[in-house]
């Protein structure tokens, strides 16, 4: 067989014509790199600043005030709560509202003046060890230099040498800063999003592509019946995947499972359905399987990058966090890390459960509204 450039040209022209007709693909070619550029370029921050912190002040003295002011002025910490109740602060930590709790002990100022080096306690949420490490490292220096200006006159000698207090840091929930404890449960969230959306996004698309859609809607089945019938088998797939990943997490990676597995199961069910609903919405939009796949990619990218799975959520700018809040993966990540590592119960995870329920409801409604009962 001889080689003919004209034949190559003929095929090339045909491919171009077909490419031009597939508007969605062309759009994706432009939008996906832009999305990646924005997310990697602006949203991801491996040295998170402005981490929310609570401060427990048991001593109203001047040194305590200086430390609060120094932390507040630093770029690493954002004091969102001041209290004298350690329980309340711990609860904020438990619910993930703050990453740090700084506790200034009673008689802190007096002990500094006396030179007995009081303990300054900082508790860090180490479920995501990467998130707080820089801030934690900066804490000691920050506190010490905050007091330097106060240590004048008779106390000037305290400003020299080691800081006049002991910094005691507690890494809570993951004391060994084991990255796997963070990544493996997170992976369950990502894998479920990926497979669940992928499986349902083809639900109607496949029918449309194979020409069976006309037959399906010619029969007396309602959109809700069709949706439930198509989504439900995938719940079983999700259950199998979850079981496999959780077993491996437990026995291969030794991820602690301190919370209620029943509660985790219930949250998993909601999360799986939320993702199935997204996939189903895609399948009401996509004209062919390629488009459905592209939409899945479109959804998956932010789920991986902006949910707090790969990079610290608190490190992202506000706009990226808002996008994150709209994704089921973000909420489920908090839920599963909370249940497994923090022994969270329903009251603690509820702030992340209702967004999942709302998301599912909205997606289900969109899917039903978009479902075409005619071929118009």
């Amino acid at each position: 067989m001889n080689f003919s450039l004209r034949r190559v040209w003929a095929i090339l022209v045909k491919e171009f014509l077909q490419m031009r007709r597939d508007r969605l693909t062309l759009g994706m070619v432009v939008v996906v790199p832009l999305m990646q550029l924005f997310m990697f370029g602006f949203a991801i921050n491996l040295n998170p600043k402005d981490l929310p912190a609570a401060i427990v002040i048991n001593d109203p003295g001047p040194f305590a005030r200086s430390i609060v002011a120094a932390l507040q002025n630093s770029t690493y910490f954002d004091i969102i709560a001041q209290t004298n109740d350690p329980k309340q602060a711990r609860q904020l930590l438990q619910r993930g509202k703050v990453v740090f709790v700084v506790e200034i002990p009673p008689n802190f100022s007096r002990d500094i003046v006396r030179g007995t080096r009081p303990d300054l306690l900082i508790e860090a949420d180490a479920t995501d060890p990467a998130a707080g490490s820089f801030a934690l490292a900066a804490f000691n220096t920050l506190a010490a230099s905050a007091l330097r200006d106060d240590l004048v006159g008779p106390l000037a000698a305290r400003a020299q040498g080691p800081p006049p207090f002991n910094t005691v840091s507690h890494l809570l929930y993951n004391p060994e800063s084991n990255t796997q404890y963070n990544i493996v449960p997170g992976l369950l969230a990502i894998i479920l999003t990926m497979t669940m959306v992928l499986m349902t996004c083809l639900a109607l698309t496949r029918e449309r592509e194979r020409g069976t859609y006309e037959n399906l809607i010619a029969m007396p089945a309602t959109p809700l019946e069709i949706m439930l019938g198509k989504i439900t088998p995938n719940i079983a797939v999700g259950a199998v995947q979850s079981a496999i990943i959780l077993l491996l997490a437990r026995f291969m990676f030794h991820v602690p499972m301190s919370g209620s597995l029943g509660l985790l199961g219930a949250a998993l069910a909601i999360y799986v359905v939320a993702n199935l609903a997204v996939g189903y919405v895609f399948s009401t939009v996509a004209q062919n399987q390629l488009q459905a796949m592209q939409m899945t990619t479109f959804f998956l990218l932010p789920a991986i990058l902006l949910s707090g799975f790969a990079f610290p959520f608190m490190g992202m700018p506000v706009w990226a966090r808002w996008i994150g809040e709209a994704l089921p993966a973000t909420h489920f990540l908090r839920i599963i890390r909370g249940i497994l590592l923090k022994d969270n119960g329903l009251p603690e995870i509820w702030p992340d459960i209702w967004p999942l329920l709302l998301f599912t409801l909205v997606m289900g409604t969109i899917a039903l509204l978009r479902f075409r009962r005619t071929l118009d």
Partner: protein
Amino acid sequence: MTNLAIDVKGLTKRFGKKVAVDHVDIAIPEGEVWGFLGPNGSGKTTTIRMLCGLLRADEGQGTCLGLDFRTQSEAIKRQVGYMTQKFSFWEDLSIRENLEFVARVYGVEAPKQKVEATLERLGLTARQDQLAGQLSGGWKQRMALAACMLHDPQLLLLDEPTAGVDPKARRDFWEEIHALSAQGLTVLVSTHYMDEAERCDRIVYILNGKLVTRGSVADVIAESGLSTFTIEGQAVRHLVQEFEGKPGVDYAGFFGAALHVSGRDRAALESTIAPYRARADLTVAEAKPSLEDVFIHLQEDAR
């Protein structure tokens, strides 16, 4: 007066600026088999889809099985068997699985037994476990017919059910249609085959979305006012061009080996034909116009 299974007036559908179906009236008495004819793109599929609620009509009103076809399409769906032009069953399911699925969606009582009986009736029992995707055209069509009869519909809407099916399978199919019609079922079947049109009680012919003619085959032929001559013989292949545009000739073309020359102006046609009668190598005879002559004439006329 018998009841009408389909009684619609002014049926109209537009796709953008194009009028696909233009004020079509159809009234089919219960228990009759009607053929729906017309060239490709004339609006047959669109009409059928509107009747079974798969497309919304832009205009028109009427009833399908006594139900308002515009507002009660869900109720109509339950009593209509619709066979799509393109095979639209699940190719990765077996015949039996497809039928059981359909039976359940329609809420058929005792679906398994019903499927069993339908398989038996259409001679599909031996192939029930074959995947639908692996069936040949004839078997696919038979399975599709089985599927649209499962819920005992009162009306069958069949969209070119025999396209691409061999003659034997087509004959079997029509025997089944006649058997169903004998049981009181109303059938509207679109087709391009003239022999199938002749098996129908009445035919409807639409062209560019407009209903052009309807009635029994004999009526349609008589109504056309067409005269047709057949010319046979050795040299006949070269004669077609000679007739084109001659006085009285509306259409000249081959049907098998014979040249058919048709026209509505009988006198003019006779005088055009006259010289050829004398030729020894040709046999000229007057023939009853066939349905095909009539349809081609109608189609040429519209140009």
